[in-house]
């Protein structure tokens, strides 16, 4: 059973090569290129015959191996033979394999640690003690999170920057009132439902800001089932107080 290997078992061509080297008990510092190239190509062929998609990286490595093999076949001058390492066409490949092997091992070692949430568990939730003194501030977030949130919204919109917003368009205050009426009488609303099917950048940015404003005003709570799941809006106040709020500067209460 020479080719009972699935390509899925290999993270990439380096991984496959390491496997072949071990299986055949080859010396990694002196890889028999002709032999390993033969086996590598045979594996790729076997995979192709099973109609498996072969990632480009595997084919690139095949080409590299063939290239190294052909260079080894070229007649060498006397000086070249004596200065082995530097001119050995295999040198870079060997270096990469040794290097890759180190990180592969380091990855296994990471995996064998007591991983939080898998082997050990911490209290990854706000303590009730803290909830009782919750302020209307949020936990620290990196710029990544904000940029990522905005990007997620803007992604599908044709080029235009929110620079070009014109004054006639919807303001954040108007949008706040719209969201409140959208929420009225509902238990909750998925974040995505705030948008029309193909929203403009302006609409997205304004809605996003309006939503943040509502959270800040404690009129809406944002909840996620899981850290990266759908974001749900929950009205945080009774219906009647939501109607016709007067948003003056003080009500927005920065500072």
């Amino acid at each position: 059973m020479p080719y009972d290997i699935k390509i899925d078992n290999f993270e990439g061509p380096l991984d496959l090569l390491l496997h072949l080297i071990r299986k055949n008990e080859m010396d990694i510092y002196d890889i028999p290129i002709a032999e390993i190239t033969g086996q590598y190509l045979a594996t790729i062929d076997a995979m192709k015959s099973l109609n498996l998609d072969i990632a480009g990286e595997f084919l690139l490595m095949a080409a590299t191996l063939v290239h190294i093999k052909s260079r080894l076949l070229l007649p060498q001058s006397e000086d070249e033979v004596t200065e082995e390492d530097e001119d050995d066409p295999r040198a870079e490949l060997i270096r990469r394999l040794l290097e890759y092997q180190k990180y592969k091992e380091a990855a296994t070692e990471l995996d064998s640690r007591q991983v939080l949430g898998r082997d050990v568990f911490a209290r990854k939730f706000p303590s009730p003690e803290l909830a009782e003194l919750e302020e209307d501030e949020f936990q620290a977030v990196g710029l990544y999170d904000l940029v990522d949130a905005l990007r997620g919204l803007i992604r599908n919109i044709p080029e235009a920057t929110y620079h070009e917003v014109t004054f006639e368009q919807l303001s954040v205050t108007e949008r706040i009132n719209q969201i409140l009426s959208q929420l009225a009488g509902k238990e909750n609303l998925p974040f995505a439902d705030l948008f029309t099917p193909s929203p403009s950048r302006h609409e997205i940015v304004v809605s996003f800001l309006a939503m943040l404003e509502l959270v800040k005003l404690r009129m809406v709570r944002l909840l996620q089932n899981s850290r990266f799941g759908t974001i749900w809006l929950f009205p945080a106040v009774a219906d009647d107080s939501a109607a016709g709020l007067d948003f003056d500067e003080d009500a927005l209460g920065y500072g």
Partner: protein
Amino acid sequence: MTLQPVLTLTRMPLDTVDLKPIVEALIFVSESPVRADQIAEALDVEKQVVAPLLRQLCSDYADGSRGIILEETAGGFQFRTRPEYAEWVRRLSRNKPFRFSRAALEALAIIAYRQPITRAEIEYLRGVDSGGVLKTLLDKHLVRILGKKDVPGRPMIYGTSRDFLELFGLKDLSGLPTLKEFSELALEAPPSADDVL
């Protein structure tokens, strides 16, 4: 992508292990109060086995030298900090560094990406008054006044400070990731379904 071999679960038969620390761990890790029957079910034992362990744990924690107590609330058990220490808990949470309000983070992002920028421009983009939040950012030295804009009224223009760069670990402003770079990361190589993590 290859899955690891499934872990062989070699837990010991329950009568040979001490259950109390397991019960302790289970209560510790639960977000809401845990009932005795939930613990019994997880341990696969009768509820009568669990009840005395819970009583024991309660008294272990009640001895006064501990900062945590085990409280029976709403039909379940839950660890809480000792009420006498509430003030210290408050002090700890108050001292948390960089607890940005969303408003502050938003304004900071706008200033970072659009500087030099006037207050009116920030407010225009955010749609709300930003005087207070701007003052906070100035107080925290994350934002600084760059000068005055050469337009009628000569409004002040703002930009981010050295502290801002330090906070976000940036060498200079060109280190800020652009929206475009973010997209490229995702578009060039969509994560494959087997990226389990």
